[in-house]
């Protein structure tokens, strides 16, 4: 059965480069550009991996007064603490964080919520591909 990944990033350009190489390995990819879309996706699909940016537009479904600069950390907390109703994706789904954030305190907070990988931007392409395939338990593409 093919694996399925959800990318959450408000800038498709920063992740779309991975799509072709991953699709070539029979991985299905969905993209959510804000918090609302992400929650809708997580409710309707069961994902094997979520690749999460830290800064994006949260949307009202994530709750009130969520700061965009830490929306990724908030979404991560919602998933891990099982706070989203009718979630099709399990709360312990592997999550990979891709971020350009330099704020160490925020990164610490994210790590405390148990993430399976954290890559700081700019990221060497191959490293992300390797991490994604490792987390999905498949052989990396050459």
């Amino acid at each position, binding site marked *: 059965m093919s694996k399925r990944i959800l990318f959450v990033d408000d800038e498709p350009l*920063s992740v779309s480069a991975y799509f072709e190489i991953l699709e070539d390995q029979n991985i299905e990819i969905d993209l959510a550009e804000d918090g609302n879309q992400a929650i809708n996706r997580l409710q309707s699909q069961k994902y094997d991996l979520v690749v999460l940016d830290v800064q994006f537009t949260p949307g009202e479904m994530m709750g009130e007064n969520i700061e965009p600069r830490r929306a990724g950390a908030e979404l991560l907390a919602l998933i891990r603490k099982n706070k989203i109703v009718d979630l099709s994706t399990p709360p312990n789904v592997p999550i990979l964080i891709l971020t*350009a954030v330099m704020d160490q305190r925020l990164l610490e907070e994210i790590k405390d919520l148990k993430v399976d990988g954290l890559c700081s931007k*700019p990221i060497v392409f191959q490293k992300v591909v390797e991490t994604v395939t490792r987390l999905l338990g498949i052989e990396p593409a050459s």
Partner: protein
Amino acid sequence: MDELKNSMPLENTLREKQTNDLLLDRLNIIGEKVASNASIGEILQQVANCAAEELGADPVVLYQCKQNKATFVAPPIYAGKLIHQVKNAGVSPFKGTTFAELILAEGESLHFEMKDDIDEHIRTSWCKQNNTAYIPNEWFHDREGIQSMAALILKAGETKVGLMFLNYRQPHKFSESVKKRMNTFVAYAAVAITNSRLIARLNDDHSYLKRIIDRLPDPVFVTENKKINGQLVWRIKVANRVAHQLFGYDFSTNEFADRDARLLLGGDLDKLKQALQKANGEVTDLELSMQHSDGHRIPVSISTSVLMRNKENDHVTSAICVAKDLATKNRLDYLNRATLSLLEARSLEAAYDIIFENLNNIGYKKGMLSLVGEKTKIISGKRAIGRNWHDLLDKTNVPLKSGNVLAQVVKSGTPRLIKDCTTDPSCNHELTQQAGIKSQYIIPLKIHEEVIGTLQIDLTDKQNFLYGDKHHLTESLNVLSAFANQVAVAIESNRLKAKANKLQRSLADVGHEFRSPLHNIITQLGGLSYYLKKKYGQDQKVLDVVKIIEEESFRGDRQMKNALYSSEKSVDSMGQHLEKHRLSVTIQQCAARFQITARNRGISIVVRDNIKKIPPFSFDIMQIEQVFTNLIDNAVKYSHERQTVEIQGEDHGRKIEISIKNTGLGIPERSYTQIFEGFSRSDVLDSTRFIPGTGLGLKIAKNFVEQHKGKIWVISKPLSQRGKTMNYEGYLTTFFVLLPKNPMEY
């Protein structure tokens, strides 16, 4: 200063902020000196040294004006290096014909950007002033090779207190921001000098009067009018402190107060009076009040009845004088200390709080601070204290052009004492009457020549003081004016700080905005190379092009990161995250980013195997990555073609030492420390090619290494003697980084 002149605006801004902060630190030290009663000579030397170091001038010559005379106290104070010894040092060189006296007589601060400008000023003004066409050839700037100078008049209010020459041995264009920095400095220096003069004078008076008072037998201070439930102990302690200061009694313990209060007063003052009268004593009334501040009791003026067993009126009068002067001196000391906290105020609002808290502590309970809008040119009330003044706050919006008394004070730059607002024609009678203000003192807040606002102090409840002893009134108003000068400096420096912070925040925002597309380019490149490989197979040329674009994008990102890291605030907010890593892996990843750049110039980057033997140890990977990326970047940039950059590591047990060697353009020993200071790249240039860079990389490297409690340094030696004559070419340069394996141990 040279870098200032030639550098980019961004560098200017950052450097300026940095320098401003240092400047403030130094000014604080001077303020502390004043508060601790340092001598005027010490203060002047401090001011001159500070100007030399913080404004980059060499040498600095500082003249102190004689009081009420248009000439100077000899000799002037020097800071920095003088090539020639000063002739007639200690002997007055002032005969009304020196260049300094000319500037003082003209009364304007001047900036000479070239030597020609100085000579021109001598040819025109000096000759005219001295009514001669003959120009002597013995000038300080000729002798010392001065190419540019700023001649700055130090003014406290309207009084000229000094003249400072900032000399430079290169020509300089003095930008507006540099001039502004000089002005802030000069304003503060003037205040410091004025205050130390006031303190010196009061100290003299005090010691003179103390000698008289020493002859008084057994003085005793008690209070009689503020009896609270028959308990006077608290007031007595105060009185004793004053007595201690006046007469040198050792009342440092509370016992005196308790025992003698019981003995002398015991709640029964009449008994005491009778006893004293019997002993031939005399009772004289004095006024006194006390203030609490942060739990400390500071005698700001002296109050009480003085009981003395001596009838000589002269002695009693002297005691009163000393008491009053001491009160003035205490106020000044107190305000000087207040200035220090003012300069440290985190925001304008906090500064306003401190200003009024301190005015309140020295007995001025009501008033208002107004500032002139930089663009609107309207004087508007910013903070008021006292309910009636608070009501006036919103109504105070005075255009500078109007005839209102505030506008007048701003325009004239001189303080106004209004004893009776109901009759003074420039007051708004309706408003002042409504607010119940009868008398007030309005002081302009001046930074050098510019008035930035006014401080109004309510004197309505001080009618005795207004129409009492003139000397005392003048002295008190002088204290207030001196404080107002400090207030002005503090407000201005706070405004500058706020501006710098705002600029820094927007720079950080811009930086992040720039990084984001770069990241996308780097990611997309990965996708592109995958696509190209899939379609056209493995093609080294294509892969190289991709790699170059990738390296260049990483370079852009690195420079931006350096700029962001160079702001200490952003580094502070980042914090440090220590985790065990293999240093060899980090260094190899850093080196890999320069693969193509190095190969294009025939340079090989060699990471020696001994690094791999270093066991994993704790470091912040983001910071250390930046350190070695910057160091390898430098090594490659400054290498000659077809050379090797060699990276080695050694395990010294508790510490590890990494060295990065390259052969190429060397670093002169004089620049060994300066290159780590930011925006100051080595002054040695490659004659054949342009080497890009911002000069921030090594500063960041040093900052991060030091956060790991480590050390970084450089040694650069010629490979052969010939190198020395060849513009530092052919040098072996080694950067060393020493890192403790456990930074927490240090």
